[in-house]
């Protein structure tokens, strides 16, 4: 069991046949369902450190930073997103790294922090085949996600907004979530729940950059998204509601 970052990296190796246990909130139900373990190794990170939050201009979260520590760090729109994940018991256990690594697909409406991290242009430091590298969260999410995430770095946006559409239950998964951040005068926006993993809403971003009205920008919300039917909502519902949520996020971002 690794007790340092160096030992975690050594234990992960090239990642072949390794499953990482961070907070455990996603992996442990797989154990209960009898789907895990099926051979291979489990790398338990709870003693590896990796949970430090460093604030020096940019803010760096160790991959094992719990969601309640992410809330406490107060960097928006990330903190607002973390604050509404599940309930206090889960937020004390779940980690930012595990949330980023939530498997894509309609079976798992998890990974709510992916949208704010995309909107903030987060950088992901990881190890795996080829050694250590730091890449944009956009690149990380588009890749095979077979690497060990060590830390996630974000800038403090000048302005931020976050909105989530939930079913009327205090502990529900979010149907959709939209995050927006303005860094160096440019607005980035991303949505969770409208594709297998969170995606940038580039049509909206371009419209805003071109000076479009909030309504005209929101009308481009469904460009490039692939909504799905699942137990939370239909693809049709997601397509209908997404532009409404985007309009609200723009209003929130612009201080309305």
């Amino acid at each position, binding site marked *: 069991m690794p007790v340092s970052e160096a030992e975690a990296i050594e234990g992960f190796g090239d990642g072949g046949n390794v499953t990482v246990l961070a907070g455990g*909130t996603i*992996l*442990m139900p797989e154990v209960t369902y009898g789907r895990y373990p099926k051979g291979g190794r489990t790398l338990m990170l709870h003693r590896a450190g990796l949970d430090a939050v460093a604030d020096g201009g940019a803010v760096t979260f160790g991959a094992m930073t719990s969601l309640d520590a992410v809330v406490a760090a107060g960097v928006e729109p990330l903190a607002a997103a973390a604050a509404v994940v599940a309930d206090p018991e889960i937020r004390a*256990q779940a980690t930012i790294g595990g949330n980023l690594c939530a498997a894509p697909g309609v079976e798992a409406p998890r990974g709510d922090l992916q949208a704010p991290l995309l909107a903030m242009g987060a950088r992901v430091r990881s190890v795996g085949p080829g050694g250590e590298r730091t890449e944009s969260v956009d690149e990380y999410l588009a890749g095979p996600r077979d690497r060990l995430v060590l830390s996630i770095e974000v800038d403090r946006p000048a302005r931020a907004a976050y909105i989530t559409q939930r079913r009327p239950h205090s502990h529900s998964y979010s149907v959709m979530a939209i995050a927006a951040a303005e860094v160096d005068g440019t607005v980035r926006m991303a949505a969770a729940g409208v594709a297998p993993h969170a995606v940038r809403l580039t049509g909206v971003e371009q419209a805003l950059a071109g000076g479009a009205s909030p309504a005209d920008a929101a009308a481009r919300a469904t460009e490039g998204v692939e909504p799905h039917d699942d137990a939370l909502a239909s693809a049709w519902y997601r397509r209908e509601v997404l532009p409404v949520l985007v309009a609200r996020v723009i209003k929130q971002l612009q201080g309305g």
Partner: protein
Amino acid sequence: MELTINGVPRATASSPVTPLLTVLREDFDITSAKPGCEQGGCGTCTVLVDGAPRRACLVAVGTLGGAEVTTVEGLGGARSLAAIQKAFNDRYAAQCGYCTTGMVMAAQALIDSTDEAVTRDQVLDALSGHVCRCTGYVKIVDAIIAASTGEFDHDDADDFAADPSQPEVEPKGAPA
């Protein structure tokens, strides 16, 4: 893996990825924590790990070396109920009882976190991941607030005297 459960040192040979809930129930016959949804969504398996409420179904026992786990069996015995247990009893906060142990442990953690009486908003936040399909929550919230005021900190003798015709029954897994 060695850990302490309700004050008693325990050792288990279960695989490190075994859920704490399974270890409690199957290795040690401690059955207050209930299997509900078994994916972290219902709260009925909540126990305390080093004083913090955790879903026992989501905690890998391999992460608990040296930890102190507390279940309802560790709160109070049949003739020495904890204040939170008396409050649930007195305020009719349980119906079928399946969610109750998880609620009680989360409530105990909330009460332990402050010297003051807890507010309704604090209770709603702390228990937001706990579902009850019988009582409608109002009595549960009332019971937790009442327990936090010290109203049930008195001796058992008056309100909870054991029926002498009944044998003393200690729950399995209670502290020795």
